[in-house]
């Protein structure tokens, strides 16, 4: 999962919000499933509430790290003076993967396609590496004629395997996942507690893939006296994984005509660069993670209205990866063992003084001053060895022949902040607040470490005014608040820990140590600055039956950090520098409408909509354009004034070359010597792509590339309906996004060069190799790659607008009467279906996900790598409450 709040405002970094769990800032920003990720280890059953802070004034207390918004997670606590309350719940989920009718060729289809495509390739470009393995080249030369057609090309006997192996069915499954959770909470007069334990057992969509997790938590708070409160939050987890996702790639790399096993029952290995999925299944790719997070705090009432709070927390995580690849794995002749270990520790020390008072019942004043220090240290070790006498048991380190790598690294950074905030409310009507903070980061060099970031906000509660109190108005407008935050300034530090230093590294020469400059430090690096302006209105109408908010914002980010090209005569190609400015604008709208408000029937509709655009305002330094993802692989080229997320490539004509004359007509001309100048490529012919010659110079060159749509949605959001009737509760959540284009990379890769891979009946099966160019969906696809059909063009971009039923929840609470005089005092049954249906024209696995999201600024935002299919999940759960 990843979240983007109010559009991208950085060029590097992930534009992810800051996650704060129980007041403690988290190191991870996404919940990707890696063992290293601590957010993944959050037990969602422990969560009491999640709040999202967006505007600059609200996030100011978190400073630089909050430039992309803040997600505040609060875990459950006990209540004072309550008996222990036990809660036990268990959920079983069935996961059904959905490839959006993407279907691989079976053996006859594959053989038919490859034979046709090899012949096509040879007829227009001669024998290639792959086509030469399928078609008999010697037999062709023996014909000794210039009058030949595809019927003269003979398939080499044995060119194809004799199998018809359904690889996808063999390695995939629809797993059943289990989740058990137990918690108890309660409290005495002065102390409260919440304790929980959770076990999650999930299997992958690839067989032998799994994740098993155990999580525990203790939240304890006690007041020693009226002036002193002490508390701890402790949570720890262990997790074991077996990551088999790589098999989705392996699956694509093996053709169906390969047998799975040799006659003697051993695993068949088709070639050095083709891996049998059965080998992959036997390989080890496991992870082990241990996380511990502990916070202790002390709250002290110094004098009336003045409170001091100090807290210390440490978040420690250790993750190990172990990989063993057997011979037969891709390009692996001998067994290879890889082990890595990363440890990271994040310590935070926070101190705040709060003064809160109300004077004359009208002046509500809150003053906050604080000091925080955060330190991160992480280290990483790798050992890699190969060549083992035995690949099953005697394959530990020590039984190897060759050590391939031993590596160790360590890095650290620190962030220090001082801040003060004043919040003043007059007569519950006018609110003003201001924050000033001074952030210091170890990532900047001398003189650049500190940045000062002020911000201010104001709000007017219109319904607090006398003129709004009349019954006539109150009937319609129950709540109305105007708010704005001005000049809110925050800084970010999206850069490496020591980019300001010219590093010197070691490389031996002639059996003696050697030293050389390994980077070009930029001591001028300084804080990124984001200025935000916010204007919004919150409203409640018709007795609060309709409530919601509407807001606009404008975020200007300056001194953005990105790679800056430098003259190569410096010995380096680029350095990290403050290179650009961006402006992000957007609107946000949300509304909730209580359609039914009866005691037993309740029906609520909610809806939200967001829209954001970001524009490149200027580029400093040596660069003239920002190119994503890189100069050798250009998919987005941004000039000043361009919008972020705009694709840049060739425009296609909307049809293929349908006849040889068609291809000929598009050609530039015939030169004086009589040779034909190709439009783009000498092999261009029937079934190829037609690119638009934008500048009309008779050839297709880099200059013909244009803006071909945006990867940023025109709008996105969600809506839902909640219906409650007695003990039943039905809730649906829909999400939508529209007006954006995603780049489906998979067919582009097939068109480029299919090599040994299998393709889909949807892709190669509908190419011009097997279909008339009028009916085909894809241009010519051959194993060796033909023509220039794979240039980055609008052909591979697809409208990714979608509407999805994200979740459907049905819960039923058994009537309380049943449990009179019993320890059991509540039973809840629930059914949940995730991802039930998606309405979209997008042809890939899924219109979102697939290895990317809207979150990156670069073209990564719209790249669909088809890494993992979408899945439908059906869960059934029961929750018991004991008292």
């Amino acid at each position, binding site marked *: 999962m990843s979240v983007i709040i109010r559009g991208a405002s950085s060029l590097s970094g992930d534009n992810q919000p800051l996650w704060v769990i129980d007041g403690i800032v988290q190191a991870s920003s996404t919940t990707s499933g890696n063992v290293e990720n601590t957010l993944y280890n959050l037990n969602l059953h422990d969560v009491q509430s999640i709040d999202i802070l967006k505007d600059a004034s609200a996030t100011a207390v978190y400073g630089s790290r909050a430039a992309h918004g803040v997600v505040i997670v609060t875990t459950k606590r006990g209540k004072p003076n309550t008996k222990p309350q036990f809660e036990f719940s268990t959920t079983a989920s069935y996961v059904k993967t959905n490839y959006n009718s993407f279907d691989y060729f079976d053996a006859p289809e594959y053989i038919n396609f490859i034979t046709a495509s090899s012949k096509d390739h040879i007829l227009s470009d001669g024998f290639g590496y792959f086509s030469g393995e399928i078609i008999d080249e010697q037999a062709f030369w023996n014909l000794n004629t210039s009058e030949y057609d595809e019927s003269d090309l003979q398939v080499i006997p044995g060119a194809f395997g004799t199998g018809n192996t359904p690889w996808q069915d063999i390695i995939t499954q629809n797993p059943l996942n289990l989740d058990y959770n137990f918690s108890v909470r309660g409290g005495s007069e002065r102390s409260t507690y919440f304790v929980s334990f959770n076990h999650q057992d999930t299997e992958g969509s690839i067989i032998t893939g799994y994740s098993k997790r155990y999580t525990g938590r203790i939240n304890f708070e006690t007041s020693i006296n009226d002036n002193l409160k002490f508390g701890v939050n402790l949570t720890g987890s262990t997790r074991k994984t077996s990551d088999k996702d790589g098999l989705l790639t392996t699956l694509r790399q093996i053709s169906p005509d390969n047998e799975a096993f040799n006659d003697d029952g051993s695993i068949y290995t088709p070639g050095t660069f083709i891996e049998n999925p059965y080998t992959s299944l036997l390989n080890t790719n496991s992870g082990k993670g241990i996380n511990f997070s502990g916070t202790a705090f002390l709250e002290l009432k110094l004098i009336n209205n003045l409170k001091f709070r100090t807290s210390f927390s440490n978040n420690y995580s250790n993750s190990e990866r172990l990989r063993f690849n057997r011979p037969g794995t891709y390009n692996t002749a001998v067994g290879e063992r890889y082990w890595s270990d990363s440890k990271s520790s994040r310590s935070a020390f926070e101190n705040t003084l709060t003064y809160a008072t109300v004077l004359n019942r009208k002046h509500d004043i809150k003053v906050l001053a604080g000091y925080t220090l955060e330190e991160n240290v992480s280290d990483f070790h790798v050992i890699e060895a190969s060549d083992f006498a035995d690949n099953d048991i005697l394959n530990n380190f020590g039984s190897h022949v060759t050590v391939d790598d031993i590596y160790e690294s360590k890095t650290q950074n620190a962030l220090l902040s001082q801040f003060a905030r004043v919040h003043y409310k007059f007569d519950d009507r006018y609110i003003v607040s201001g924050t000033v903070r001074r952030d210091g980061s170890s990532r900047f060099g001398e003189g650049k470490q500190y940045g000062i970031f002020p911000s201010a906000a104001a709000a007017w509660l219109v319904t607090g005014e006398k003129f709004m109190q009349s019954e006539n108005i109150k009937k319609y407008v129950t709540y109305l608040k105007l708010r704005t935050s001005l000049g809110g300034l925050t800084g970010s530090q999206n850069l490496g820990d020591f980019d300001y230093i010219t590093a010197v590294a070691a490389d031996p020469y002639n059996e003696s140590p050697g030293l050389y400059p390994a980077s070009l430090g930029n001591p001028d690096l300084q804080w990124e600055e984001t200025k935000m302006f916010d204007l919004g209105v919150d409203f409640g109408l018709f007795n609060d039956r309709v409530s919601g908010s509407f807001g606009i914002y404008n975020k200007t980010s300056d001194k953005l950090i990105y790679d800056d090209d430098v003259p190569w*005569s410096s010995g*380096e190609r680029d350095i990290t520098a403050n290179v650009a400015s961006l402006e992000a604008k957007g609107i946000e709208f949300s509304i909730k409408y209580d359609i039914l408000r009866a005691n037993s029937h309740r029906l609520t509709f909610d809806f939200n909509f967001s829209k954001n655009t970001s524009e490149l305002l200027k580029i400093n330094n040596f660069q003239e354009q920002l190119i994503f993802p890189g100069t050798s692989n250009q998919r987005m080229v941004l000039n000043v004034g361009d919008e972020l997320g705009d694709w840049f490539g060739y425009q296609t004509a909307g049809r293929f070359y349908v006849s040889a004359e068609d291809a000929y007509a598009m050609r530039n001309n015939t030169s004086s010597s009589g040779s034909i100048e190709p439009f783009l490529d000498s092999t261009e012919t029937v079934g190829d792509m037609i690119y638009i010659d934008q500048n009309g110079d008779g050839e297709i060159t880099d200059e013909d590339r244009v803006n071909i749509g945006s990867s940023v949605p025109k709008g996105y959001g969600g809506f839902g309906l909640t219906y409650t009737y007695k003990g039943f509760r039905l809730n649906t959540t829909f999400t939508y996004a529209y007006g954006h284009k995603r780049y489906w990379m998979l067919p582009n890769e097939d068109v480029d060069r299919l090599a040994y891979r299998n393709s889909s009946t949807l892709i190669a099966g509908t190419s011009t190799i097997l279909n008339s160019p009028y009916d085909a969906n894809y241009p010519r696809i051959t194993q060796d790659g033909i023509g220039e059909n794979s240039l980055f063009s609008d052909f591979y971009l697809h409208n990714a607008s979608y509407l999805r039923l994200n979740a459907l929840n049905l819960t039923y609470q058994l009537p309380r009467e049943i449990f009179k005089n019993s320890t059991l005092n509540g039973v809840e049954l629930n059914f949940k279906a995730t991802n039930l249906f998606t309405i979209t024209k997008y042809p890939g696995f899924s219109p979102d996900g697939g290895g990317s999201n809207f979150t990156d600024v670069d073209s990564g935002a719209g790249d669909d790598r088809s890494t993992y299919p979408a899945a439908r999940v059906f869960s059934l759960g029961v929750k018991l409450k004991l008292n």
Partner: protein
Amino acid sequence: MKNMKKLFYIAMTTLIVGVSSCTDSLDLIPDYELNEKNAVTDEISARAAVNGIYPFITQGSNFSGTVYGQLASKSGFVDWSSGDYDMTTTQSNNTPSVEYMWLGYYETINAANFAIDAISKLNATQISEEEQIALIAEARMLRGFSHAYAFWLFGHWWNADDSDVDGILYRDELASVSNLQIARLTVGESYEKIFEDLDYAIENLPNFTTNRKVSKEYAKAFKAKMLLYRYGFDNATGNEGLVEALGLVNEVLNTSVSGFSMQGDLAQVYEDSWDSQENLFSGYLEGDGGYEL
């Protein structure tokens, strides 16, 4: 009494906050990484800084195979490098990637400048003066050497007109953000700068001991080669430069240093490769040289 308690609390708070307000925590030093200021501190690290220049020369083929293919193409003998053969290479149009050769030369030059800069700053307690000068001479030899390659591939080294603007970018400082842009020298100035480095090397380098490092003899031979490039195409200035080159070559041939001698059988020189006694300096590739052989 109550006030005393409050005062105590306030004092304690101030103490906690005060003690922790220590800004040193931002001045971190990278682990397992040195920097240009602290890397070279004594004779051993000074030697290592000079050693660090060699891998840029011996690894890859910027100073061997590839460059001769480019030069032969530029001369029109072969068409192995179309950009050079057609004389169409520019900064933005350089297929095949001649730009990486440019980068390779300047990486070497930057490594040399790092060594020269760092070693020059050492004082007498850190390194003996004799060793200091010898190491600087070694680094300057390699700096001149790399500039010569950059000149051959990217400059008008053949032009007898010294004021030809297509000389080299000559760098004699470690690259930093404040010296990224440097003006191009003329052809005449380029030769002058390269000769300065070579002359210093001839003056201060120790005699030949191993062909894995540059020596006084190698500096002389290399200078002779540069003189041939400088004056071999120039009929106007007479044969002074050529005579100087011949003198240098004869000096090298007539010195007796152990480990160096001319071989009778040319084929054997190739057979012996970097073990040949005829090599004054060779791109050594075994072990730490960068390739597994």
